[in-house]
């Protein structure tokens, strides 16, 4: 800010706002007046009541052993200790980390490859394809889940397609294929988001950068590496953050397809939260898993954002 603007502001305040004249409270120039917080209050109140309060309540409950009905007993950190020691619960966290590979990494890589193609070739009916590719994002996950239960069914379309080659499997029923099969659905869902965001970001990249690269004889891959990816840095950070969070908290897809089976092979933390809270009668345990999941998601989001920031200064 230039000093002329601040002095102008000060002078005006002096005319309309001064009561006794002279120096008033020490507010740095340009700092918002307290009254601004009044405007934030409604939103802040909602946020506190409907987000912060339940969150804190969950943290509080996680220190109890409580069946949701009779009197709870203080458990201290017991629930958290059990999370660390229980193989099944740790397994669930590992499953959701595996899902990141599908929801985030594969979706982003495929979207970038497609962008690379579009960058080179003029595609007719881009608007149509953009809508089509984004479509999975707009469908309720329960519907997606039902659709894929049908697609993956033992005598479903996928197996009908693969049967001539002897590649038909019980996709959601076999230990080795259940999680990858669900992961693929995840990639399919998040890919559209990645693609559309990258496409938007790409239109912002000046053509001159590509021209310059081509004059220097850059290959398709080099063009990608030195022009497209660095220019899409912000979009990448947003997409990776969103898809990773989606992967970590995935619930509806899994609950509506395998409910965690076969043999617990697709159990993720959010499924365990529901089981503990509503089936096992362990509300404290459910809360503790929820808190750990929240912390992990929070940490991952911060980590990705920081990496995004750092590369910006590099």
């Amino acid at each position, binding site marked *: 800010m230039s000093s002329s603007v601040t002095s102008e502001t000060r002078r005006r305040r002096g005319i309309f706002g001064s009561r006794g004249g002279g120096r008033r409270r020490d*507010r740095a120039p340009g*700092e918002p007046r307290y009254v601004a*917080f009044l405007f934030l209050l409604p939103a802040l109140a909602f946020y*506190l009541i409907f987000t*912060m*309060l339940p969150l*804190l*309540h969950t943290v*509080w*409950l996680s220190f*109890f052993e*409580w*069946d*949701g*009905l*009779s*009197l*709870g*007993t*203080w458990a201290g950190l017991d629930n958290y200790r059990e999370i660390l020691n229980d193989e099944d619960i740790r397994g669930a966290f590992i499953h959701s980390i595996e899902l990141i590979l599908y929801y985030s990494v594969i979706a982003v890589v495929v979207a970038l490859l497609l962008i690379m193609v579009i960058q080179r070739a003029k595609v007719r009916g881009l608007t149509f394809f953009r809508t089509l590719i984004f479509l999975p994002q707009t469908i309720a996950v329960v519907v997606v889940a039902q659709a894929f239960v049908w697609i*993956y*069914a*033992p*005598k479903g379309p996928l197996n009908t397609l693969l049967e001539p080659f002897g590649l038909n499997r*019980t*996709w*959601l*029923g*076999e*230990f080795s294929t259940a999680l990858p099969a669900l992961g693929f659905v995840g990639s399919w869902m998040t890919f559209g988001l990645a693609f559309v965001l990258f496409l938007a970001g790409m239109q912002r990249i000046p053509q001159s950068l590509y021209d310059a690269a081509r004059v220097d004889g850059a290959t398709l891959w080099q063009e990608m590496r030195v022009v497209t990816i660095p220019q899409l840095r912000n979009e990448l950070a947003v997409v990776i953050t969103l898809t990773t969070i989606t992967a970590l908290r995935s619930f509806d897809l899994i609950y509506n397809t*395998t*409910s*965690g*089976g*076969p*043999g*617990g092979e697709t159990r993720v933390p959010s499924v365990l939260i529901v*089981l503990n809270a*509503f*089936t*096992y*009668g*362990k*509300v404290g345990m459910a809360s503790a898993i929820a808190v750990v999941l929240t912390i992990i998601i929070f940490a991952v989001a911060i980590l990705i954002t920081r990496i995004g920031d750092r590369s910006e200064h590099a």
Partner: protein
Amino acid sequence: MRKWILGAVVAMLAALIAACGGTPGQDTNASSSAATTVATAASDADNPFAKYGDITLKVWSADNQDPGPMPVIQELAAQFEAKYPNVKIELTFKGFTDYMKVIKLALSGNDAPDLAQGNQGFAVDGALVKAGLVLPLTDQLETMGWKDWYTPGTFQQFQWSDDGTKFGEGTTFGVAQFGQSTGMFYNKAKMAEAGVDPTTWATFDDMQAGLKTLRAALPADEAVINLGNKDGYEAVHAWGMIQGAYNDDAQAIRDWVFQADGATFDTPGNIKALQVLKDWVDAGYFGKDYNAVGENDAAAAFGKGSGAIYMGGNWQAGVIKEGLGDDAGFMNAPPGASGKHIAIGSTSLPWHISSKSKYPDVAAALINHLINGEGSAQLLYDQVQIPAVQSAPQPEGDEYLGAVATGWQQLVKDGGLTLFPDWSSPSMFDTMGAAFQKLMAGKITPEDVAKELQDDWQKYHDELAKG
């Protein structure tokens, strides 16, 4: 300035924490009102409840299947209203899963239903007894003759210690309407085609030989036993029949379900039965799609002609009959060395009288009418349900339904209902489902299964001991 905001935020957070603090469940544990014994002196010869004036009896049920139990309950309730014109019955039906999530809260609330179904096991019935929300039925057993309804082995599933910690003995807190046992449905046409007659299977070994013949006769991609194990429990139901063949003592199996001291899953009989289940998988009796199909879909597929046998609950009798028509047959799995029929099964959900009800005598009369009212058996048969009470007549002129009813009665008579193993702990349903899926996929051995289940059992046993 910064400090001011920081202070405000800290203050606000502190207020929030204070608001959500306190021991959870504190206020829901209000002392349960002591049941008032209402004098039963009848002022009106025909209607002993006339003295109450116009009253409404709130009734909650999870038996919402139609066709199925729901129309039976509706019809019997309407009969009751006609008999006692001053009593209005307000029926509330919910699906099983939703119902079980809310019933405990509903019965602990101020507007509690007078009459409601619970669910056998620690998770629901145990909690209701522990919280004093349901009345003991000791008087009705004697005065209304309810004690003759079931055998002692069947009664155990309604019995609790008064503090709700011991299951399978003590005071009776509920009674139930219809019988839900597991058995063997078979496709008569497929059996005949393969030259197998299951009605001649006198022992479990005969059945084993028959399965072998069937495997050879049926096309390779068709399962002999149609199984829908997507949710993990259907294989357990089928296995219960194998377990019954290799165990002589159903009471020992029930004791494990009841969390009796010293009970164990790790018995030679159970290990052998688990091994037989794995052998059946390896022999291809179940095909290979069983983990991708749910129970209801598998029963429906069996009705449409997939597989020669369906081993599962008699609650699927209607669907299977509808699909197979006259080709549908039913029998209990043949017994093992003990000569007794032993399999998974129990009554339907127990009816409880709320300890908050102002008209417990009216509620008891309604239970009596629902379970043993005149014509109630036929109403159940019309909906392909099997009455649980011992005195119920056989269905007339329906061979298939008669066989399903006989299946239930055989198990009751032999004291062979092993109840449902997942009652033994709140997490057993999932533990068992996952362990069985792993066993069938060859990931773990029968001994591992026994250990996983016993570990889960022991964990809950310790929790119960802690109180």
